[in-house]
């Protein structure tokens, strides 16, 4: 009866909690860029064009003479409307640049998620059920190696083995050494291109998920209600897949969501290694070019994705856990 209002309350609270965080991020990001040593004019105008008149005009146009809070306010109000300004180096709107790069990064994240869902979760469950047996030790070692190997190096090794060595040995490369083909052009080619970076990105993510799944399942299997189920004569397979897994799913979903940051971290280096035109690579280029509005925009975007992902996780959480739904 009160369930619904409790859930709405929970939802409102979660949404409202995200707002101060995003505001904080915007202030931080704004200040980070403003306090960067060096005059932004140097990045915008080529040396030969820095005449006093030009400089004054650019300053005027960007509002650089205004007090900081005025600059922040105008930047924020534009940002809220989706206008993140213009890239210094490329001259294109930042929003548009970001939008054009989301899709390729999302493809990598999707492959990584598949790896986590279809390999990591089952292996974590099996590990927990057969705790301290050979199967468990084996999959734990794999998971440990998975979280310990740097993604960029793993990417390079995959290229080395499956593209370069393969070509030396068999005369053709199993995968391309990098690059991007959109799935709309050719699905098969896309698969060839996306497989290696997607799996590279997925390894760490999956390893974390597997470890989390195992430890949660171990905890859940020690709960008293599992003993209750056994005392009822429920089959062990049902106990694991229904009684225990339903409970374990709650923290697993949380981890899948919170580790979205892990995917962003990985995408920076993996996209660099595989020359994949995603957000991570865009950020790297922006940093190299000292393209401040673009860096600002990307940070804000990434934070927004993080906040939204957390929100989705919380909703799923509430859906899975009746203690939240009906409270």
């Amino acid at each position, binding site marked *: *009866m009160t369930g619904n*209002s409790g859930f709405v*309350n929970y939802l*409102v*609270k979660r949404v*409202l909690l995200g707002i101060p965080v995003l505001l904080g991020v915007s202030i931080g990001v704004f200040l980070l860029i403003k306090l960067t040593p060096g005059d932004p004019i140097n990045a915008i105008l080529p040396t030969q064009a820095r005449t006093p008149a030009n400089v004054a005009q650019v300053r005027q146009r960007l509002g650089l003479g205004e007090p900081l809070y005025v600059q922040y306010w105008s930047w924020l109000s534009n940002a809220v409307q989706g206008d993140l300004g213009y890239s210094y180096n490329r001259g294109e709107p930042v929003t548009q640049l970001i939008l054009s790069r989301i899709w390729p990064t999302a493809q990598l994240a999707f492959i990584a998620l598949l790896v986590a869902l279809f390999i990591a979760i089952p292996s974590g469950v099996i590990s927990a059920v057969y705790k301290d047996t050979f199967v468990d030790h084996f999959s734990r070692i794999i998971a440990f190696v998975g979280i310990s190997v740097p993604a960029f190096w793993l990417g390079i090794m995959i290229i080395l083995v499956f593209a370069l060595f393969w070509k030396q040995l068999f005369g053709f490369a199993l995968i391309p050494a990098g690059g991007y083909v959109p799935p709309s052009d050719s699905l098969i080619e896309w698969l060839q291109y996306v497989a290696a970076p997607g799996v590279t990105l997925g390894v760490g993510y999956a390893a974390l998920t597997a470890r989390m799944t195992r430890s949660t399942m171990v905890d859940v299997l020690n709960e008293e209600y599992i003993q209750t189920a056994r005392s009822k004569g429920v089959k062990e397979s049902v106990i694991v897949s229904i009684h225990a897994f339903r409970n374990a799913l709650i923290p697993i979903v949380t981890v899948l969501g919170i580790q979205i940051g892990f995917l962003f971290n990985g995408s920076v280096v993996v996209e660099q290694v595989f020359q994949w035109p995603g957000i991570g690579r865009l950020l790297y280029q922006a940093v190299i070019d000292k393209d401040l509005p673009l860096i600002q925009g990307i940070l804000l975007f990434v934070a927004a994705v993080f906040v939204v992902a957390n929100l989705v996780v919380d909703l799923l959480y509430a859906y899975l856990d009746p203690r939240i739904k009906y409270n």
Partner: protein
Amino acid sequence: MTDEPILKVDDLQKHFYENQGLLTRLRPDQEVKTVRAVDGVDLTIQEGETLGLVGESGCGKSTLARSVLRLTEPTDGSIRYRETDVTEFSDRELRSFRSEAQMVFQDPFSSLNPRYTVRETVVEPMKVHGIGESSEDRDQRARELIERVGLDSEHLDRYPHEFSGGQRQRISIARALAVEPQVIVADEPVSALDVSVQMQILNLLNELQEEMGLTMLFISHNLSIVRQICDRVAVMYLGEIVERAETATLFEDPKHPYSEVLVSSIPIPDPTVERDNITLEGDVPTPIDPPSGCRFHPRCPKVIPPDDWAHDQELWRRILRLKASLESGEVNLDAIRSKLESQTESPVSEEDVKEDVLEEYVIRANVEGADRVQIPPEVADDLARALSAVFSDDDPVEILDRSYSSICESTVPSESDVSDHRSVNCHLHDEELKRDQQLSTVVTADEH
């Protein structure tokens, strides 16, 4: 009652607030819930006596104890220690009060810092209050204390995990005594211990109290333990004291129906005795939004019927329960209807549903094997009328209230003194008093 009490608690209240967050307050459909953990409690403790405070979990006895020591800030009321008001103490005064009043905690596995040796645990309070001239002196005192509570001074450099529950509780007592206090508040000090060691600790407390002239507030849910150690007892129910009496008196002649239930539920270690313990119905209610009138009335086996009630007590209680179930919305007519429909596989009428409700809530009282009661026709009519109201969206409770309401629901019983050190908050007792008065007036009239 000539002596001034050492501790006097007046109208003490401690309320907690749920849903107090800013965001909740922004939403119109969410109200801040008040948990009335302690709701207007008066207590007096004389120097050197042990007062027992008894009640079930959630009745507020631990909160009361913590409020008395200001380990939690009381919401309202006053606590007088000798001539001073504890609630008004400044930080400095509070600190010096801490050397006068100490607490012994319930859980011996959580009340000792696992990283402190026994020595550190016992010496720390002395250092805080500047007791002992040097660290050697404090060491010496620690040794004496630890031996006094029945441990070996060799144990001083051990850590809590090396001790059993009973030994830990001894250490906890030694810590409390380190500041040479006047008052000890013991919060369920033996309930986490095995029966075979409970008496060891109780005896220790008893001895120490006599030796040092301690005053003690002893909290427990276990009446038989209270009996071993307390001079007087206060019985607490849902944030209020319902009865106060000297220990022996309370056990022999409990006045409040709740005390009666508690006394009757003490297990008798004798299988040959067929006990007539009074079983209380229902759960312990929460202190959020407590029942109106006498807080015990929904569970009270002696809840007072209206003056014109001609039937038995059991039926009366069940009608009250039906009323409460209707009021809380617990009676779900749709669910009952769909249950009946699936049983008979045909549509059911309003009458059938009403019958089922009566059968379940009144006749059988929900329990298989419970005694069935007969509903006299006039009562049945009234109930049927009230239940019809549910279908026409009227308030059934209001209809029932007209002829089936109790003073216990409507009026908060006041405290009445029975004799010295003895008082009870119950309408039943008021009535008894009234009857006695009438009797005595009759008698006096006769004499004249």
